[in-house]
């Protein structure tokens, strides 16, 4: 079984033919067997580390965490290990989640890497090979940024996570790597030098790496309080920063801790608890779920960001609607790429997309479906587009690039239709353990769906207003 698992991991590391689902929530979701391709994990379930094999083991580069340009050690190995442990502890200490991490020692030798400080790209390559084989999950100290530079990456990179291996039989994460750029902690701030030498406070640096540890744990990106990014009013408003997920795709505000906030936002805590539920999770969360539909009210829409916001409590000085919010992307459990065979024989091999992505379910009931776990309280639910520039490594949800949501952002209300007022909203009161279903949202759009000329008979059932809008389009 072990050999089979490792073989699967190696196979999937090297031979993935299509995209994995990067969701607001889980970073990878299992999919079914398709034709001759075997199942990819568990259909419609997030890949996680095996909860029966906690703690999650990682190994640390034996070198120092940060050195200055003359080679002087700024943060030694022992202090670096302590920092890493405290960063992992941020996720581990979520009371409603059941995951833990353990440093099981120095990096294992692999190829040209025979031990000691990992400094070269060749050593990194060899250690990554062992990570891809599921042998070890390395945490690498690039003490002076030289490794990152030799990989052709810019000095602005604080750190990165590289998922290495998956157990595609059982749906578990098997290996993952994190690289920390110690140059940001070398005590020298010379942004105009060539190459630049940037500096971050320990808090800023750690929050960047804790974000990467979120990916290491199986979390994707989340989008909440996007207006903070778009308005670019720095420092960020604290209420909005409180609700801004640490797993937001880009870093641009002041450190959360420096603003007096916990490192993890409610969205981060909710999702890590959903991926690794503990016995207390059900006592602290209820769920809101539903499906997002096109204007026809029957065709589900993939890739729409859905946010549940706690309603503001006017008796407090804070704006709870900005502070307490949890999101999911519609269709986050469904595949972002079901495949097509039309171009399979027309272009390079890379364009053969016959079976689509192995990741994500093909169960039609999961198309456009979302589920959000929220702490008890009264919430509104709203929809918006995933920001168009959140692509590739910054992607949110199953579609990359994201689609522009048909229609304008709107709230859920009890009389959902394709022609309701966007600000018309109803509230949903959630108690611990509640499973509130059917919070379906019909987007306001003159297009019933993208293929507007394929009506499936629904054209004859839609509301008069929508039919009039259609007529306008046909005339135009």
């Amino acid at each position, binding site marked *: 079984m072990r050999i089979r698992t490792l073989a699967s991991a190696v196979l999937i590391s090297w031979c993935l*033919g299509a995209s994995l689902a*990067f969701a607001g929530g889980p970073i990878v979701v299992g999919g079914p067997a398709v034709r001759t391709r075997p199942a990819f994990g568990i259909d419609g379930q997030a890949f996680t580390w095996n909860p029966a094999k906690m703690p999650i083991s990682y190994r640390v580069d034996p070198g120092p965490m940060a050195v200055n340009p003359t080679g002087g050690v700024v943060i030694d190995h022992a202090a670096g290990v302590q920092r890493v442990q405290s960063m992992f502890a941020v996720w581990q200490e979520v009371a409603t989640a059941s995951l833990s991490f353990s440093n099981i020692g120095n990096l294992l030798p692999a190829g040209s890497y025979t031990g000691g400080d990992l400094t070269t790209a060749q050593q990194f390559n060899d250690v990554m090979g062992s990570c891809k084989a599921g042998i070890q999950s390395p945490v690498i100290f690039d003490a002076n940024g030289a490794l990152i530079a030799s990989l052709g990456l810019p000095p602005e990179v604080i750190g990165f996570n590289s998922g290495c291996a998956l157990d595609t039989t059982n749906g578990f994460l098997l290996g993952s790597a994190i690289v920390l750029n110690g140059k940001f902690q070398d005590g020298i701030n010379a942004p105009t030098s060539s190459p630049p030498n940037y500096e971050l406070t320990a808090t800023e640096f750690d929050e960047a790496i804790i974000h990467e540890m979120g990916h290491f744990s199986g979390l994707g990106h989340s989008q909440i309080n996007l207006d903070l990014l778009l308005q*670019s009013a720095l420092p960020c408003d604290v209420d909005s920063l409180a609700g801004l997920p640490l797993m937001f795709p880009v870093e641009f505000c002041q450190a959360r801790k420096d603003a007096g906030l916990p490192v993890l936002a409610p969205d981060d805590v909710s999702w890590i608890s959903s991926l690794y539920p503990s016995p207390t999770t059900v006592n602290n969360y209820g769920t809101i779920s539903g499906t997002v539909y096109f204007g026809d009210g029957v065709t589900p829409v*993939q890739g729409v960001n859905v946010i549940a916001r706690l309603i503001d409590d006017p008796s407090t000085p804070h704006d709870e609607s900005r502070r307490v919010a949890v999101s999911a992307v519609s269709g986050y459990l469904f595949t972002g790429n079901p495949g097509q065979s*039309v171009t399979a024989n027309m272009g390079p091999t890379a364009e053969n997309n016959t079976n689509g992505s192995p990741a994500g379910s093909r169960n039609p009931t999961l198309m456009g479906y979302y589920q959000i776990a929220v702490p008890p309280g009264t919430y509104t639910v709203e929809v918006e587009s995933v920001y168009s520039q959140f692509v*590739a490594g910054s992607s949110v949800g199953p579609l990359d690039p994201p689609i522009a949501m048909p229609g304008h952002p709107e709230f859920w209300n009890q009389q959902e239709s394709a022609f309701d007022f966007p600000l018309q909203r109803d509230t949903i009161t959630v108690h611990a353990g509640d499973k509130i279903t059917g919070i379906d949202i019909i987007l306001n759009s003159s297009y019933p769906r993208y293929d507007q000329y394929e009506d499936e008979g629904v054209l004859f059932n839609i509301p008069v207003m929508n039919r009039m809008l259609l007529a306008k389009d046909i005339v135009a």
Partner: protein
Amino acid sequence: MLYGVIYVLDVNQSLRRALLMLSVVSILTVCLHNSSFAQSSARTIPRSLDQLTAEADVIVHGSVTSAKLEPHPQLRNLMTVVVTMRIVETYKGPARKTITFRQYVWSLDESQGATEYGKGQELLLLLRPVSEYGLTSPVGLGQGRFLISTDRKGHVTAVNSRGNVGLFNSVAQRAQAHGLQLSPRVLTVAQQHRGGPIPLTDLQEAIRTFVGTR
């Protein structure tokens, strides 16, 4: 074709609807999916345009003609994307008609599904010096990669992975400190822009100014 198949099937309404839904997604995917390659998550600090320009070794505007995923020739455990672009204009570095570069891809998803270098994409790229392993990447990662597009009104705009947020932070002050004369247009953009796509012509003019070729 898919719909034709659905309509001749003698199945009940719910199954037909389910099949239709699946086919809609399939069709959407045909439209959305392209041969592009994933870059993976990395935390970066924000840089302004003058800083990005100074750090870049090569700055070009062009369109992607190919993007091929392959292991690094020496570092076989590291996946890379080899991108070739047809160049319209070079702002920094030797003038050229095409450019080919290799970038490290460290995502769990090493192959498709993202859009950084989709075939046919028009980009303005600020690339770092090539490393000893023949690898490079945009300055500030997505910050130095501007996607060029034309809106419904025919305006040609450019936007990077941060939505251009912070792109002109303190640019005017630094220019003044360095005795750099910004044109009235660039100065206005630098003082007023907070985020979002900017006209390509403004970006080009600003870059030419910072490079010193205006």
